[in-house]
């Protein structure tokens, strides 16, 4: 009776020592996890996660202080990428899909040239000087919205980045309710509906005929 117990105990301590030794001996100084997390974040530096920028949030997630669903611009895709990286369970994201890309616009009539937004911009996408009209470099703007609140005259607002033929994406085919009668059009009104972007639906015979 004693021998098995002793044997098991011996084995347990042996493996314990082995594990402990390996942990020290074979420690991997890999890419720090915060860097990997940072690489997955959209870098809009918007601070909507409650941290002053993407890097601090990445560090907080790496340290286990922040949830992985804190990134609003990244939306569900970023959350899933983080869950994948960290081996965590996916958690609910407030906004279902990532919000559309935004760009800040300065109302030229209202800007008083206070430079407050220049200081707020995390990526230096606003050019201007004191008492001069400020302009936003659209290609650099991440649409984080951090410049909106500091503006004393409320002359900055966000607009969705306009979609062009170069940035347009084919929509995901929306599965139609299967096995409906074939001749029934999914869009009988001829009006475009957001969810009606379905493949291979012929238009109703008259509604869509182009004017000859």
């Amino acid at each position, binding site marked *: 009776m004693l021998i098995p117990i002793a044997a098991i105990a011996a084995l347990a301590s042996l493996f314990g020592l082995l594990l402990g030794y390996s942990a020290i001996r074979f420690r991997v100084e890999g890419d720090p996890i915060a860097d990997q997390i940072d690489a997955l974040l959209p870098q809009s530096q918007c601070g909507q996660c409650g941290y002053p920028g993407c890097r601090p949030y990445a560090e907080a997630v790496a340290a286990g202080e922040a949830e992985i669903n804190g990134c609003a611009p990244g939306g569900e895709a970023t959350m899933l990428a983080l869950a994948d990286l960290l081996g965590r369970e996916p958690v609910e994201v407030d906004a279902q899909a990532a919000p559309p890309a935004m760009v800040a616009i300065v109302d030229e009539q209202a800007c008083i040239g206070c430079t407050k937004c220049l200081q707020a911009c995390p990526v230096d996408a606003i050019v201007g000087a004191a008492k001069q009209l400020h302009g936003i470099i659209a290609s650099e703007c991440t649409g984080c919205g951090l410049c909106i609140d500091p503006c004393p005259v409320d002359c900055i607002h966000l607009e969705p980045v306009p979609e062009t033929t170069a940035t347009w994406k*084919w929509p995901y*085919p929306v599965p139609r309710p*299967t*096995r409906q009668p074939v001749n029934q059009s999914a*869009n009988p009104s001829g009006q*475009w509906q957001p969810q009606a972007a379905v*493949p*291979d639906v012929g*238009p109703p015979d008259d509604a869509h005929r182009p004017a000859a």
Partner: protein
Amino acid sequence: MPAKPIEIRTSPHLKRAMSVDRIMRSVVIALLPICAFSIYQFGLSALLLILTTTAVAMATEWLFARLSGQGNTLTDWSVVITGILLALTLPPGFPLWMAAVAAFVGVALGKALFGGLGFNVMNAALVGRAFVQAAFPVAITTWTPAFAPGRFTEVIPSTLTMPFMQPVPVADWIAGLQLDAWSGATPLALQKFQQIEPPVTEVFTGMIAGSAGETSALLILLCGLWLAFKRVLDWRIPVAVMAGAALTALPFWLLDSSANPSPGFVLFTGGLMLGAWFMASDLVGSPVTVSGMVIYGVFIGALTVIIRLFGGLVEGVMYAILLANAAAPLISSWTQPKVYGAVKQSRKVK
């Protein structure tokens, strides 16, 4: 000015040649002659058996489609195939309530739980049959003679067993028919246990005992060829199954032709023909690559013969197909085709 979003309609803009329900309907049509022969051979019992499994399979499908909110999935006809095929693999005198259990289990466990058509890993009919094989081992190996007199006016006694009751032993009934010595046993059983090999011509045409629909290899071959000709099924799979079976049986037969069956006998007995043409070729459970189909078919054929020769069971087609179904995704991933222009591994030019 924002552009008006349009309804996206994707190419191609031409008429589609095929549809799922047309494929499935063709298979049902191809199964009808086999059903007819089965009824001609085994009478009223076979008819009741086919009707029972088909009806129960359809009802189960309808129920599960309703529960999962898929709408009416009966219109794709696939479940009709499952029902008919199941009946054809059962002994003609199989108690109807057990057949109903098989149909329910096959569709529910083998298909609906995976998500319905296209998502099932294994052939639903064979899942149902495997279940009753394990649950009712005696009933499923109780064969009754073909061409029993009065088969169109009376049923085999075991057919109408009350639910949850043991079937009536049919030995007395068979004895009362006063037929040849081996008419009641299937050729496979005769060969395996008594080393009596019935003539190949008789097993080929199906003038023998056996499961309701597997007896006439000739008829199954003709119906299968018609489907292959209509390009509903891929001829490679059944041909590979038959080749695999014949080639595996050949060396054993050459070694000892008295103890081991001939390749021809192997091909035309039991469920091999039905399995090869109608179950192994099931689109959903087979690999998607051409070379994968051949490997899969040969695997089924060889495994069937190995089970028949060395296993405790008389017949091995069912388990061979179920196993191959399970292996199909693996086979598919082994046999990925080389993509156009795939960059070859850099070969050193000397």
